[in-house]
């Protein structure tokens, strides 16, 4: 069976390379049938890759340990769900998943746009080029179909990966990462075919939005995973692997906004090309970081041969993008200029600058150890204080801009008009700010600013909905809720966008509350002893031990009360896995509705003999807003993405009469 998998991948290799070579030739020499053939090859590559995936999945499901990959990543006791998730828990399998998604997306994008011949004809070789890299890795460097005499049992999956997050987090992230390849390919396709119109943007808009949403949700899931499973009390530690996903997401956020400017004003063409290439290159860089472990120590290059290949590919992508953009620079230049520094276009531009600045500072921080090693011979690294400084410096103005943007008119906003529209949100901010200071929230300046700006943004977005609903109601009557639904239905991009902004606002407030205003306390307790934190009293009652499926669970039973009345009982502890010889931390969390936050308990250390428990407790206000924000985020994105018949008709009219007859 492994032979079938290998054969399928070799077929993918042949098809993808053919699509690259034939596609380029067809586009260059304007050969219609060859172009179609190359297109078909790309479509077929998805089918052959899918066959390879099915082969691996069957092997994983059937405990076929003759596959080295199956033996390395699963075991007989591993449940089916996690066995199938083994597809992406290892190096080779995750590359295969990447290729599957890439060929799948490519096939879909090319098929949906097959009538835009001259755009697709160049997008095909670009997509094939990216796919070639992955397929070469899979066929010749890092194959999931290596076989060996089957051992009795496999090595199993690391216990910390055996949870539902493992089923969702990597695929969602990949759907996001890989999705950024599509706008990149069509952008480069537009450059290669010397098109100067916005067709590539129109065609890829929903792709970018979808990829961006997947990447955002994937990261949120990852943070939640870290929060409840790894359980150190936080959800983000600025680890290179975490930053690996954040950077392309920030670049994609900037791109989503600046592309709107190009659609409305025809400006920023060069900037958009640079941004889409940046987002794509960062997505490849992101997976490179996660796989090669290169950042922790430059010496780990030798441990993973993939690292140098990836780096080479990234360099090729960067050089290709830069050269192509440079060569087409004359085509992209426009005469349209920014009319006023006080306009909605300008706020979009500031938003872009801040997002890219934040993205680049994170990139710098991630690369710092490599650069210092290369330049000074001594590895230095930056940590939380560095990242937090820039997150505050760039993030807070970004937050404020989310509120300012909707209030400013396009092209040119008069100060008079600004004064009127700013009034209510500014008042909201002022009232909130002074109230908070009076209540003692001035202890953290970034926290206070987040809340204050947040009030501004909330008022701004709220007013948008109110004003819009009022106007719609005045026009068409009916009920108020009906007017709201109609308003959103007719302006999906705008109001979907506002909903997404509201989600980001929730995220910011949740982060501020749970970091700037959290309380942490650690205490060593004997059974019967208590500790106090933020109004709670926690009493350590006793230790319990029980046998679970594949672990011995030790739990400290802790009673939680507030103001004398019992609130809940928590049981932080540890799990010991005899087979894997590992211990895992099992935190116990109480979701407190009073502050929309958590009471987070960690059994830092348990001494079974003396029964002494080292309990670490964190009170994190508003942290659950972060997870709630995820749902609003997806909802808002769906609204913004939802097909709009009116818009489709207009676009069809614009491009249909122009259809290339071939």
């Amino acid at each position, binding site marked *: 069976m492994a032979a079938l998998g290998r054969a399928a991948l070799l077929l993918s290799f042949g098809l993808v390379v053919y699509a690259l070579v034939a596609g380029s030739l067809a586009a260059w020499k*304007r*050969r219609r049938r060859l172009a179609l*053939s190359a297109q078909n*090859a790309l479509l077929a590559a998805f*089918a052959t890759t899918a066959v390879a995936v099915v082969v691996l999945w069957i092997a994983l499901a059937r405990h076929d340990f003759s596959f080295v990959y199956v033996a390395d990543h699963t075991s007989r006791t591993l449940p089916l769900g996690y066995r199938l998730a083994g597809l992406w828990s290892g190096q080779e399998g995750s590359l295969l998943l990447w290729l599957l998604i890439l060929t799948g997306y490519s096939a879909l994008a090319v098929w949906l746009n097959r009538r835009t011949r001259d755009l697709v004809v160049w997008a095909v070789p670009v997509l094939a080029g990216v796919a070639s890299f992955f397929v070469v890795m899979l066929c010749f460097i890092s194959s999931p179909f290596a076989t060996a005499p089957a051992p009795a049992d496999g090595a199993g999956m690391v216990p910390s990966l055996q949870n539902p997050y493992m089923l969702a987090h990597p695929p969602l992230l990949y759907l996001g990462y890989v999705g950024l390849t599509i706008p990149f390919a069509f952008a480069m396709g537009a450059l290669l075919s010397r*098109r100067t119109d916005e067709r590539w943007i129109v065609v890829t808009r929903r792709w970018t939005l979808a990829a961006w949403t997947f990447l955002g949700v994937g990261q949120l899931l990852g943070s939640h995973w870290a929060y409840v499973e790894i359980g150190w009390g936080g959800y983000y530690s600025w680890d290179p692997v975490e930053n690996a996903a954040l950077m392309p997401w920030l670049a994609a956020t900037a791109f989503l906004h600046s592309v709107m400017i190009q659609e*409305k004003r025809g400006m920023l063409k060069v900037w958009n090309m640079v941004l889409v290439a940046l987002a794509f290159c960062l997505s490849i860089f992101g997976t490179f970081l996660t796989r090669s472990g290169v950042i922790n120590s430059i010496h780990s290059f030798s441990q993973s041969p993939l690292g140098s290949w990836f780096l080479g590919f990234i360099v090729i992508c960067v050089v290709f993008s830069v050269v192509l953009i440079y060569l087409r620079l004359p085509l992209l230049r426009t005469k349209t200029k920014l009319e006023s520094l006080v306009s909605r276009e300008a706020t979009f531009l500031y938003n872009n600058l801040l997002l890219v600045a934040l993205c680049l500072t994170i990139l710098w921080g991630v690369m710092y150890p490599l650069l210092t090693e290369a330049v000074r011979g001594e590895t230095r690294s930056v940590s939380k204080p560095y990242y937090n400084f820039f997150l505050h410096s760039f993030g807070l103005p970004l937050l404020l801009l989310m509120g300012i943007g909707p209030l400013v008119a396009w092209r040119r906003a008069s100060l008079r008009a600004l004064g009127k529209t700013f009034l209510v949100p500014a008042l909201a901010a002022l009232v909130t700010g002074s109230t908070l200071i009076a209540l003692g929230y001035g202890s953290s300046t970034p926290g206070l600013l987040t809340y204050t700006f947040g009030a501004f943004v909330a008022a701004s977005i709220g007013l948008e909905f109110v004003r*819009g609903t009022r106007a719609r109601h005045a026009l068409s009557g009916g009920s108020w809720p009906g007017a709201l639904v109609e308003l959103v239905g007719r302006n999906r991009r705008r109001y979907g966008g506002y909903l997404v902004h509201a989600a980001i606002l929730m995220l910011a407030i949740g982060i501020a509350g749970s970091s700037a205003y959290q309380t942490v306390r650690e205490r060593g307790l004997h059974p019967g002893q208590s500790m106090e934190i933020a109004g709670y009293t926690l009493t350590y009652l006793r230790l319990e031990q029980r046998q679970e499926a594949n672990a011995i669970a030790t739990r400290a039973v802790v009673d939680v009360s507030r103001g004398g009345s019992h609130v809940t009982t928590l049981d932080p502890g540890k799990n010991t896995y005899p087979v894997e010889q590992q211990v895992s931390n099992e935190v116990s969390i109480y979701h407190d509705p009073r502050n929309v936050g958590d009471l987070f308990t960690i059994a830092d250390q348990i001494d079974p003999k003396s029964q002494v428990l080292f309990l670490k407790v964190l009170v994190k206000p508003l942290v659950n807003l972060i997870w709630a924000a995820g749902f609003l985020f997806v909802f808002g994105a769906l609204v913004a993405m939802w097909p709009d018949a009116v818009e489709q008709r207009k676009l069809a009219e614009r491009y249909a009469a122009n259809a290339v007859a*071939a």
Partner: protein
Amino acid sequence: MNVALALAALLAVLAVAFVARPFVREPAPVSDRLDELGEPERRRLQLAEERDRALEALKELEFDHRTGKVSDDDYGELVGPLRRRAAEALRALEPRAEARQEPVNTPR
């Protein structure tokens, strides 16, 4: 093992057939030329985009005015130039539209 080989062979045959399909379907076509956007087409596309931009800008201005974000004075100042731009864009497209006998959108 034989099943695997047979399946692989089948897959290969299907793939090659699919890739060769355009050539098999049209062994001797009238034209194998892949048309590209000619200069008049590009020009028309550009004008169409400008027209849509102008119309969209007008729509947004009206929306902003109706929801109270743009004052009456500002609206009066801005709407004139925008209407002119839209009219120009429409006019520029007209000869081509007439040549194709298409209806022309009018701003509401």
